[in-house]
């Protein structure tokens, strides 16, 4: 264990606040990794992680968010919410231009919100069901009017949730096949320069960016290196300066963080707040018995998994809401590692000891080892488990068709329990064919009602009280077995300043980044 402890120490020492004292120096180049290869950089069409990482420098939203998910100005320089919580008025920055020189105005916002994203983004269609009207009183003001108050609405304007796309290029065209998709045009701090397929994506500084002096970096390269070991080597040899979270395997992390001039950050993932848990198929015995589900929680040694498999990076989850998501509170009941309690619960329910199937997440070694550890933990309290190997496609298929007993997963919380948490627990979200909804088949009318009330309550304090109730109720029922708040550490050279300034991390922070020389 000493190895692990040592690496833990290094990480906590290095992860101290990287607040820049000195004056930013313009110039320089950042070399990053993008993994896997994005299939497109057109953020209005594709929003998965690799596309966000690159396209977040090209496209912008109306707002950015700090690490507590408080809104920060972006394309909107200021905003007001009416006291009844229904009208959101945004004042846009003046003098913003698209990368082709055309001005950015409220018309572009209306086109993006009412037209483009409605056709391309399922998530956006869902958000807009709450909106009665979007209007533009003048070229630099946009007003959203809601049907009823919805406090999380203010957290729906991030660059990838509601990216602004140019009306003059897309209006009246087939969005998916518009040739501009290959040379994306946004308003962001960096412009698309070139993409050598299989090698690197090159972005250059937007010289006419509307914030004076920004960005500082002259250009950014996103290198494509398909092999995990080679990505680690690319950092060690200096070809790459920044390893975004998840671009190297966990077992390489201690070695890389021991390098000279190397810093680690766990920040910049507050918007996503990935939470890992086990789906427990509540429809089937014995998972339909709450005592069994609680026994699973008690049986698992989650601290061991955190220390050994995740190098101590992250946190043991307390319940349905991740520690970095708004409205989180560590309420009771909690389930520390306690095999005796687990055994007692199983004895009480006369558990029959039939073997159960466990699907690991097919995302590499760490998850495979984790499944083995959980199997062992459960076996120790008398729950025999058979691990069933799958690949990504097979895993998606089986989970979304409910063909499993227990299955590993991790999901993003999207900045608010109403956006990223309730979908996994409310009964209206039980529907086959989707691996991200209420896959476990949990129904509790009290919880349904609480979630519904909490989503629509204002102000935030009232929501907090309701979500406290939700967390208590759900934690007592254990519909799924929560594992860890995951953190995918960003590994970078310490002379990179202000690398992560928002809740979306590297994805939309690089406009603030500069290199200390």
């Amino acid at each position, binding site marked *: 264990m000493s190895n692990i402890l040592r690496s833990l120490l290094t990480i906590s020492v290095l992860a101290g606040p990287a607040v820049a004292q000195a004056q930013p120096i313009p110039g320089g180049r950042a070399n990053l990794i993008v993994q896997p290869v994005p299939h497109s950089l057109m953020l209005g069409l594709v929003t998965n992680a690799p596309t966000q990482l690159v396209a977040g420098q090209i496209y912008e939203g109306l707002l950015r968010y700090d690490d507590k998910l408080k809104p920060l100005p972006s394309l909107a320089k200021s905003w007001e919410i009416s006291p009844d919580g229904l009208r959101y008025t945004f004042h846009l920055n003046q003098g913003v231009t698209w990368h082709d020189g055309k001005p950015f105005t409220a018309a572009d916002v209306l086109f993006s919100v009412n037209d483009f994203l409605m056709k391309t983004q399922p998530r956006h269609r869902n958000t807009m069901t709450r909106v009665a009207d979007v209007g533009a009183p003048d070229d630099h003001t946009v007003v959203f009017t809601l049907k009823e108050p919805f406090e999380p609405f203010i957290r729906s304007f991030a660059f990838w949730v509601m990216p602004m796309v140019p009306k003059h290029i897309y209006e009246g065209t087939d969005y998916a096949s518009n040739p501009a998709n290959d040379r994306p045009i946004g308003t962001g701090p960096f412009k698309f320069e070139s993409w050598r397929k299989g090698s690197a994506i090159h972005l250059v500084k937007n010289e006419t960016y509307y914030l004076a002096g920004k960005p500082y970096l002259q250009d950014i390269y996103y290198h494509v290196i398909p092999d995990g070991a080679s990505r680690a080597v690319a950092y060690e040899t200096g070809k790459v300066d920044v390893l975004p979270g998840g671009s190297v395997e966990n077992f390489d992390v201690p070695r890389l963080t021991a390098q000279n001039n190397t810093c680690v950050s766990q920040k910049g993932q507050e918007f996503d707040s990935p939470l890992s848990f086990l789906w427990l198929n509540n429809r089937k015995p014995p998972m339909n018995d709450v005592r069994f589900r609680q026994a699973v929680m008690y049986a698992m040694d989650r601290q061991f998994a955190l220390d050994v498999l995740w190098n101590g990076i992250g946190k043991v989850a307390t319940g349905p809401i991740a520690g970095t998501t708004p409205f989180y509170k560590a309420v009771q009941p909690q389930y520390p590692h306690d095999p005796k309690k687990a055994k007692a619960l199983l004895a009480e329910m006369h558990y029959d000891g039939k073997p159960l199937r466990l699907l*690991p997440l097919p995302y590499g070694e760490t998850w495979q080892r984790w499944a083995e550890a959980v199997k062992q933990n459960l076996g120790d309290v008398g729950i025999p488990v058979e691990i*069933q190997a799958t690949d990504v496609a097979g895993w998606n298929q089986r989970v979304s068709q409910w063909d499993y007993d227990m299955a590993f997963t991790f999901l993003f919380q999207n900045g608010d329990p109403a956006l990223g948490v309730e979908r996994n627990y409310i009964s209206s979200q039980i529907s086959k064919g989707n691996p991200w909804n209420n896959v476990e088949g949990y129904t509790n009318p009290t919880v349904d009602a609480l979630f519904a009330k909490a989503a629509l309550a204002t102000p935030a304090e009232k929501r907090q009280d309701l979500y406290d109730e939700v967390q208590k109720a759900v934690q007592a029922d254990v519909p799924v077995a929560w594992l860890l708040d995951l953190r995918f550490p960003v590994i970078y050279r310490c002379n990179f300043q202000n690398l992560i300034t928002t809740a979306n991390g590297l994805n939309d922070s690089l406009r603030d980044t500069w290199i200390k020389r």
Partner: protein
Amino acid sequence: MTAFWVRYARNRGAVAGIVILVLVLVLAIAAPALYPRSPWAMVQRPFLPPFTNGGFPLGTDTMGRDIASAVAHGAGVSLLVGFVSTLAALLIGIPIGAVAGYFGGRVDDLLMRFTEFFQSVPNFALAVVLVAIFRPSLVSIVAAIAIVSWPPVARLLRGEVMALRGREFVQAAVLSGQRTGPIILRQILPNTLSPVIVLGTMMVAAAILLESALSFMGLGDPNIMSWGYVIGAGRTVIRQAWWVSLFPGVAILLTVLALNLVGEGLNDALNPRLSRKTR
């Protein structure tokens, strides 16, 4: 029988082979008694070096699992997969080869094209695809190994049967009006037994290697502790913990070596005519 053993024992390597093989077999049978806890149990701190703790002579792996226990429990898995998949390969290859060799002509042509077809696909790649698609499990692994390893059996049988077909005793059986099936089964096949046994032994060795390679790639049955799995799981930490990968590898090496030695010995003993000629 004694003549057989005398001939066999003349090959010292073959005797060593049989000794090692028996030891592996004993280890496989005794594993549950020697290490009653599951080899997956996390019993000590991770990365315990070997020879430092009497209870865990071969050290522990990334998760604190006993490597000695894994090696012991893995013996049975390797032998089982090796023998069963070879048996299955023989069951595919013998009929195809026998029919092709006996009937010749167009039947032979067709069956040999079929065989060639399987030989043209890279062996290991096909096995990887088969196991991945039918999900890694003991059954899918055995089936995949059988499917990629039968062609040599068919080729061997075809040659043997072709040679035997023209012999007097077969011709006599044909003339006496016996049906084709019984002729192949009773007259011809028993005479091909010796080379098949020799080839079979070698195939068991190859199957063990193939199984370990699949497990190494992460395509083993996730519920069964196999040698290849331990090596694969230890690969990423080889700089810190060489022992995780070393010991199971030695186990595979010894077992495969023993099988090959036994195969040679059998060849000498069963085919005295050919002895010292090939292989």
